[in-house]
């Protein structure tokens, strides 16, 4: 069954490639590497400010290595997030396509697609952004077939640091920070010690400055002045004299800054953090004039800016998008944004709620193409862009005119990052189908159109929309529309290898009375199946029957041969504990062993629902 699945995946993939080949027209997407990053960033920033939406599309090195690690229809939003998190933690992004676009008159899309090539090179020699990453050969060969240049990517890909990593890096590198970046908050009343300290600093500064004034009168030879520096300990900062004052607390930093401010206008204090992160000393630089002071301040700012650029690398793009507060559109938001969060913001938090709230601080509104597709009533599996596109094409007449604004580039071969333009196109179509475009346009940048609001920030394409009644059971959106709750689900394993779904169902039907009621079985992987009981309460009675000593008949035989069953809670726990074994059965068994946590997670018996889908979905993006 799984083998068949894989074959199907492969075949579908082939069709995807041939489709792109057939479709000769390519949009010109600007390819950005380390060498043209700086220029492209400025250009991108202007395009960003003139657009209403931003489409993103990622190219990862892998998604899952065991069938059950993929987000499946039987996942609740929480388990789906845990699976996405597991993938985002391990795999790497090699291409990040971004496309600011706007829709005018409901049918004209003006797009500026960029495709950034990334590689997590350790530019700063700090072991960041990533020590190692996983690859799936199938992903790499698929990219290779599209003509992706791995040599160029590894040599010339843009590196980055996440926000969390940047703050660590800053501390470790110990660059001087101008005082404007230093918080000046505490207004505690000065103590005696404070005033003594201040006086001491003041006199030190006075002496130092006095000495400087004297010596600067004479023009010394270079040798003499450098000797003097050696002997007297005079320092220089960018050819200006300076003095370093050691401090041992933030309070003292505050005081030094105060003193410098009171003392003279031509002094600029800089804060030097120690390797451990605490402030260690304040460097006071003497400037010769007001102009010189401005110059110095600008110098420091530039230095910081350049430095930041070097540190942040590609993350500048993410920061720009975030700062624009514009809505971001992606095809599979859960996957894409778990990657974005993990690589560019901070390590992924342990739960979906924390993730959503942390993400919403950075990207206030996010749209999922998959979800919008469902809103159009699409019951088909439109899990890839091509299927979605052809579905819309067959159902609705929505002509969309795509205008890609880049100059024709001298392209050799394939242009990567085409998908991001397709996302723009699809989004425009969907907006038009859902009749929400016109309002969106008038509302400017700050707010998303009220019509769109309801569609924003939905992270699991399988999950229910927030406005749906919570007590609603599962809505099945494939062939047989049925409902089920997580409490009616049971995971089964130990029934022997390589049974087909039908065989297993037959086996179960003869095994126990409970199975005379209606139920359904799906194989999750080679070793494990999921059973849904359509009559509520039966799942629990089945589990009870499995555990009772009155067990009899063929079910008893099956149990003695190794049949095991657990409820949905154990599955959830396996995901929470990160027991990502290759076979789900192994993970479930480990989760069962973990007694400590079982008490904990049994207590939060929040009933949740899943969408029961009759087929394991095949997601082309996963290939």
């Amino acid at each position, binding site marked *: *069954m*799984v*083998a*068949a*699945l*894989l*074959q199907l995946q492969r*075949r579908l993939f082939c069709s995807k490639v041939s489709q792109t080949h057939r479709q000769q027209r390519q949009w010109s997407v600007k390819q950005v590497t380390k060498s043209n990053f700086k220029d492209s960033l400025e250009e991108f920033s202007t395009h960003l400010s003139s657009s209403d939406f931003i489409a993103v599309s990622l190219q990862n090195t*892998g998604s*899952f*290595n*065991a*069938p059950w690690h993929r987000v499946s229809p039987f996942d609740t939003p929480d388990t789906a997030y845990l699976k996405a998190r597991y993938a985002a933690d391990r795999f*790497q992004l090699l291409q990040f396509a971004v496309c600011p676009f706007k829709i005018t008159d409901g049918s004209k899309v003006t797009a500026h697609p960029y495709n950034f090539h990334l*590689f*997590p*090179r*350790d530019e700063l*020699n*700090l*072991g960041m952004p*990533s*020590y*190692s*990453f*996983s*690859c*799936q*050969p*199938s992903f*790499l*060969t698929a*990219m*290779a077939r599209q003509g992706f*240049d*791995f*040599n160029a990517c*590894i*040599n010339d890909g843009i590196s980055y640091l996440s926000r969390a990593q940047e703050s*660590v890096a800053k*501390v*470790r590198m110990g660059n001087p920070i101008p005082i404007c970046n230093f918080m000046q908050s505490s207004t505690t009343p000065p103590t005696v010690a404070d005033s003594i300290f201040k006086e001491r600093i003041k006199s030190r500064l006075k002496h130092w400055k006095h000495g400087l004034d004297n010596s600067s009168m004479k023009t010394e030879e270079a040798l003499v002045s450098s000797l003097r520096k050696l002997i007297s300990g005079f320092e220089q900062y960018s050819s200006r004299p300076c003095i370093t004052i050691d401090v041992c607390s933030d309070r003292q930093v505050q005081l030094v800054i105060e003193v410098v401010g009171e003392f003279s206008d031509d002094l600029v204090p800089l804060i030097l953090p120690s*390797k*451990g992160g605490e402030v260690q000393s304040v460097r006071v630089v003497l400037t010769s004039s007001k102009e010189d002071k401005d110059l110095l301040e600008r110098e420091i700012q530039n230095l910081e800016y350049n430095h930041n650029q070097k540190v942040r690398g590609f993350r500048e793009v993410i920061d720009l998008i975030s700062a624009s507060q514009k809505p971001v559109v992606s095809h599979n938001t859960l996957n894409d944004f778990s990657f974005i969060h993990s690589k560019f913001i901070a390590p992924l938090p342990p739960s979906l709620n924390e993730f959503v709230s942390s993400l919403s601080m950075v990207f206030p509104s996010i749209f999922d193409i998959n979800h919008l597709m469902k809103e159009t009533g699409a019951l088909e599996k439109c899990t890839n862009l091509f299927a979605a596109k052809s579905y819309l094409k067959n159902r609705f007449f929505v002509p969309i005119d795509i205008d890609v604004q880049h100059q024709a580039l001298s392209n050799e071969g394939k242009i990567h990052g085409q998908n991001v333009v397709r996302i723009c196109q699809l989004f425009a179509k969907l907006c038009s189908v859902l009749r929400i475009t016109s309002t969106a346009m008038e509302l400017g940048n700050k707010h998303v159109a009220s019509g769109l609001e309801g569609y924003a920030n939905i992270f699991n394409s399988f999950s229910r929309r927030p406005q749906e009644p919570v007590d609603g059971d599962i809505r099945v959106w494939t*062939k047989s529309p049925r409902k089920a709750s997580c409490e009616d689900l049971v995971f089964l394993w130990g029934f022997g290898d*390589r049974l*087909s779904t*039908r065989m297993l169902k037959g086996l179960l039907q003869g095994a126990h009375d409970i199975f005379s009621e209606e139920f359904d079985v799906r194989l999750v*992987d*080679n070793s494990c199946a999921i059973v849904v009981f359509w009559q509520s309460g039966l799942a629990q009675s089945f589990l009870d029957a499995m555990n009772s000593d009155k067990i009899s008949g063929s079910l008893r035989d099956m149990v003695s041969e190794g049949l095991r069953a657990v409820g949905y809670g154990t599955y959830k726990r396996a995901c929470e*504990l*990160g027991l990502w074994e*290759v076979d789900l059965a192994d993970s479930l068994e480990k989760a069962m062993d*973990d007694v*400590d946590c079982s008490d904990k997670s049994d207590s939060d018996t929040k009933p949740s629902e899943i969408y029961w889908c009759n087929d394991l979905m095949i997601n082309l993006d996963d290939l």
Partner: protein
Amino acid sequence: MTSFVSTLTRPKSAQAISLTKTPLTAVHHAAMTTHKRWPLGALRRAVSRSFSSSSSTASTTTDAASATFPLKNVTRSNFDSVLSELRSHVRAADFVAIDLEMTGITSAPWRESFEFDRFDIRYLKVRDSAEKFAVLQFGVCPFRWDPLKQSFIAHPHNFFVFPRQEIPLDGQSYEFLCQTSSMDFLAKYQFDFNACINEGISFLSRRQEDEALSRLKLGLMDSWQGSSECTDFPLVRVADVLFTERMKKKLSEWRDGLLQNRDGGLQYQSHSNELKQQLQTVFFEMRPALSLTGFTSHQLKLIKMLTKKHFKDLAYVHRSNEISSQELVVYTDSESDKDLLMKMMKDDHRKQAQRKIKDAVGFRHVVDLLSSESKLIVGHNCFLDIAHISRKFLGPLPPTAEEFVSSINKYLPHIIDTKILLNADNILQQQMKRARTTLSSAFSILCPEIAHGSKSSILPHQPCVKVEVQVDDLRSSNWNSGAKHEAGYDAFMTGCIFAQACSHLGVEFSPSRNLAQNEKLQKHINLLYLTWTNGVIIDLRTGNRIAESLGANLKKFPPILFENIILIWGFPSKLKAREIRECISKVFGPRSVTAIYHIDQTAVFVQFSKTELVSDFLTLKEVLEKNNDLITELHPLSKLLEGGNTGAASYEAYKEICSSPIAKILFADQAEAVGIKWKTKLLVPQVEVETQEHASSSPESTAKTESDVAGESETAKEVGDSEENNPPCGRFMNGEKNNPPYRRFMSDKIIDSLFADEVKHIRTVKY
């Protein structure tokens, strides 16, 4: 194809580039020596390369056919032809040198090699590496002694390998890890990743092949051969019902036509043009058949279903070969004829599947060739290479070193490590001590003539062994491709070193004698450094461990006593080693702690002076954690336990943590992920407690004694001295091969505080 071949050929201009770059890099590195040691090596390499290139051009004038042709690069396009050539080369060879390039070395900083690693831990770390990383290049270089020329003939081959999944393996898709710094390093040496991923040769391990064949036997391969049992499914969609009805009509028309016109030939005419194209009458295995083209897979499924359901004399057949696949509905005379046909088809599928599996074996044919010919395999510090070979071409690695060794000894019965050879012989060792026994420095010292055409040998009484290189029809006695860190070239260097070392040991070369049986080599054969750091050698024949003893500095450092060691992790991150020591000393006495050793910024080893202190500490910690009162807060240990995430365990837990496949970057996270539920754990050692003597040739690789705490850094000099000219985590082997203590964990830092950045510092200095 041509374009591809050209990409494979490394641009010669690379040498020129490195030449011009040299001064620049020199400045850069001088400024950065404290942070990055390896660029010095790169510089040296650049210098030596420019030297070698100039010398090789000089020699071109004397020898027209010299020096510049590339070695044999092998990808899947030329694999078959190269393999048959290689067979004859290997058969004729006296020994075969090998070398591997991988995607990384360690999956986390704490998985690097430490002095505090017991042998079993070391094996677990190597196993983890071989399990997680992929092999990208495999260098094979057969050496044959030519008695007429009194010279070796070498055939360097550079195989590009990529673990493509040619056949579905039980639903699970393979995944491998890349270490960012290794990839970056390989890229710096112009490694061609495109060639690897596009054109790399795939392979199956023996285990995978056996599994695939046994699944085939069970008839389970059918599913991916497309002839799976047709499942009956209800027709839901109207379109499906209509389509089925129409196809049913068409098929019965066609069949009736056949039956009616039995004598008058085939006169079936489809009425609609469109269908005519889709259904064409052909002959299949002497039977009339309808060839189905232009249907979707869903439609084919429907046709298959209805054929089975409604037509007893028609059989649905799927036929495929390398070039094309065909879907057919075949007319059969009788039930038995149908059975015959189906059986035939089944056999056909099976054969095809078998062929596919055989093809998927791919690169393993090369390693199997080395195994079946039982040639002497030569590697340089190759324990990890061998582990990779075992993992990739045999199957998953066993849990213990002993089991591993016995399985590999069956597969490759004669392995010799040039690193062992160089260190075992006194004269060679003396010569080498000036430099390091790294691959490239050993090569340039032992084989100066080959390395840079210079005649001066460090072994004045030893003539240089001549090595002639042959690639296809090109021959040269003065060959230097200059492409270091290319598996094929590294294998060639290894072989040259071995040949020179043999000549030094007085081994006589002659085609009639088997080198593997040579008595002078016997005491070196099948010995590998399990850990170079500690000088522990494992004997592949017996699984015995030998501590290489050089005696000299044995007394100077205290031995590592594993039963006295405790593991502490998850303590407050600002805590430094010295503070931890103070903390513990306050409770257990000033002389209770012998050494503290950082694993990474989240974990330390603490060695106590007495074994009892281990359990004392763990008990006390537990007690303190239970009562949360004022006494606890004032207790000296509370500093260590602050935050409540501090875990501690005896040395055995370290083994458990290392054996887990989980790869967390920080040790504390790993310990948590491994599910060490106890925050405090005392495990009774399962392995007999033993003292690992510090008897390596690297004195600095030992824990510091109390007396050293004073803080002088006398070892720094040695660290500087023996630090190697190789990049940190560079290519895989480098870490191991070229560097004496493979991770030089700056022992002067052991006791000293370790700020986060210092940890980093060590990381980059590495080995």
